């Protein structure tokens, strides 16, 4: 009987996995489902080690599940270095492990098919998370012709990975589960005929000499569309990137970012591990701990080096009452295992973050999930030439912006976590501000648009009155520019 790590019973989620699809992995047959990526299907079959590292020849497995970390590269149909975590399975595919550095040149079984499209829009939005989708809706309501690009096959950003109901007010879809908010926003986007949504389209760059945003849409392992897009306005809503940690064994298969674990569990319905240790007891850490329980995974502990959880009490309380230990002032010493995670050693620290002698504990786990914070994804903003500043309150390098979220690059707006790490609800409001502002700068919309923007700005002001957001407010002051005329 082959291994099947798929989740078939879940209190909140159901999955449309699609028809069964067969492919081979290193010569052995694997049964997957049409809506899975290669990496997801392999994980479901119990395969954790995907590739071998270049110099130390260490086994590696997926770490990010969004095509960034390069730990899932394989040879597919004779094409080396395929990012299997974002490549959908196809019937009859030949998938092979490789050491990417010893990988020979491509011997593809079929030639590359590329369609080139030159397109013009009023507003082009990069990122279809809560900020990008909200921006699209607002700009479209004003009558703008809008394009939304998203690298993932399942637009909605981090919303699609959230099983819990969200805080906020009804204006920000409070009380609705993240995954359902994504559906609400997406269906609203689809109701507007003047919005084109491009899933699986990775923005490659903005080329100033040509004044063109270029994106590549993946239609299959050998089929792509090159989108060359001219926008009168651009909104960058690229969200955030997970931070990582250096500790011995941090590259063993089974160690992954919280986002990767969520993608496997909640997007694909696959158990990434049976027993996990979660590092970081902020909101992300305790929320994935609860999601793990929903997926039938045992959480051995949630540890945090700080003396206080950064999470909301109600989220932390949910896992405490399920007897999941939250160990404060604890950090990871090392992860052990032969080819994959087998155990972790943690220790306690004192007020000065020095190890407490003799406090080491060993925990038997097969998964380590890192939830140690987020950093704004600002690459596209850099390509547009927006001026940046390091603002610790906002999580890293963020762009200068006006109160209407226009950056120092004229006509380029920012919204959501890319402007500073906050929440989905603030991302929705920032999306509305950026969307309405972009449209209104094009002379579109009227009083109604102005009113929508005013309400969103007022809402954000009230939201950020919360003690947890005072710091963020201070951070924003550091990068706030005067209004652009």
């Amino acid at each position, binding site marked *: 009987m082959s291994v099947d790590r798929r989740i078939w019973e879940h209190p909140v989620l159901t999955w449309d996995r699609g028809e069964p699809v067969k492919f081979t992995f290193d010569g052995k047959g694997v049964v997957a489902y049409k809506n899975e990526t290669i990496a997801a299907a392999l994980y479901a079959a119990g395969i954790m080690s995907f590739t071998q590292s270049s110099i130390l020849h260490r086994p590696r497995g997926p770490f990010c599940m969004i095509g960034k970390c390069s730990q899932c590269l394989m040879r597919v149909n004779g094409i080396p270095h395929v990012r299997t975590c974002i490549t959908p399975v196809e019937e009859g595919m030949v998938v092979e492990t490789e050491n990417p550095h010893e990988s020979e040149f491509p011997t593809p079984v079929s030639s590359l098919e590329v369609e080139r499209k030159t397109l013009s829009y009023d507003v082009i939005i990069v990122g279809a998370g809560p900020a990008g989708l909200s921006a699209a809706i607002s700009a479209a309501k004003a009558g703008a012709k809008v394009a939304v690009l998203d690298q993932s096959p399942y637009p909605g950003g981090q919303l699609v990975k959230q099983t819990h109901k969200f805080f*906020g007010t*009804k204006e920000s879809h409070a*009380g609705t589960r993240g995954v359902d908010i994504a559906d609400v926003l997406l269906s609203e986007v689809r109701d507007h005929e003047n919005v084109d949504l491009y899933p699986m389209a990775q923005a490659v760059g903005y080329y100033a000499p040509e004044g063109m945003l270029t994106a590549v849409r993946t239609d299959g392992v050998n089929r792509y569309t090159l989108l060359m897009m001219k926008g009168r306005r651009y909104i960058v809503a690229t969200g955030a990137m997970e931070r990582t940690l250096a500790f011995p064994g941090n590259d063993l298969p089974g160690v992954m970012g919280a986002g990767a674990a969520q993608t496997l569990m909640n997007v694909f319905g696959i158990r990434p591990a049976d027993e996990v240790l979660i590092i970081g007891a902020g909101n992300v850490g305790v929320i994935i701990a609860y999601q793990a329980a929903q997926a039938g995974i045992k959480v051995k502990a949630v540890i945090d080096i700080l003396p206080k959880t950064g999470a909301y009490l109600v989220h932390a309380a949910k896992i405490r009452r399920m007897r999941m230990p939250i160990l404060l002032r604890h950090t990871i010493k090392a992860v052990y295992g032969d080819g994959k995670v087998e155990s972790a050693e943690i220790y306690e620290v004192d007020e000065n973050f020095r190890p407490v002698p003799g406090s080491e504990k060993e925990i038997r786990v097969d998964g380590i999930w890192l939830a140690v914070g987020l950093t704004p994804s600002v690459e596209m903003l850099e390509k547009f030439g927006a001026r940046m500043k390091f603002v610790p309150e906002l999580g890293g390098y963020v762009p200068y912006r006006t109160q209407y979220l226009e950056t120092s690059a004229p006509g380029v707006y920012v919204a959501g976590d890319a402007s500073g790490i906050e929440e989905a609800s603030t991302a929705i409001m920032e999306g509305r501000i950026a969307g309405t502002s972009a449209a209104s700068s094009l002379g579109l919309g009227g009083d109604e648009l102005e009113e929508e923007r005013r309400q969103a700005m007022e809402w954000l002001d009230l939201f950020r009155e919360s003690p947890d957001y005072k710091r963020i407010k201070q951070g924003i002051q550091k990068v706030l520019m005067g209004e652009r005329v």
Partner: protein
Amino acid sequence: MSEEVLEGTDTIEAGYVTVEDLKRNDRIPPLKALERAPMPVIDCLEDIPCTPCRDVCPTKAIVMKNMIDRPEIDWDKCTGCTLCAQACPGLAINIVNYFFGKKSLRKPGYEDYSLVMIPYELTPIPRKGDVVDVYDRGGKLVGEAEVFSVIKSPKFGTVLVNILVPQGWAFEIKHVEVRRR
């Protein structure tokens, strides 16, 4: 190798809320209100920008001037309709029908029993008649109890588990797990 049993830090800093914390924050409904109707016990002790409980309340019994304020309950206005518990994103609200045994159930031996409604989003989902282990806010086993009824909130999708427990447990308990069917 033997493995140490891990226990979490028992402080409010680690998400550990006690009945004492609730009492200090006036979250335990007064007896007078409990005699009139089931009442919510709201474990929300932070200034979260979050308003669904207020917005859903048909009698405006939950007062929150700004979105970041904590919910304050006007015990006189509350009718015990349970909508706030269904709506709460933090699963932070239990509904305690304190005098259920005496006033509604009228089953011999259950006079001092309460009916506690717990929002639930885990599997296996308890079913009517199941015996469940009952835990307090810190995950300490309080005892076992019988599931009186289970409904799924039509509007919010959250499962609501009603369990019969002695009155003494009514405010202590916060979590259940199926022990046997």
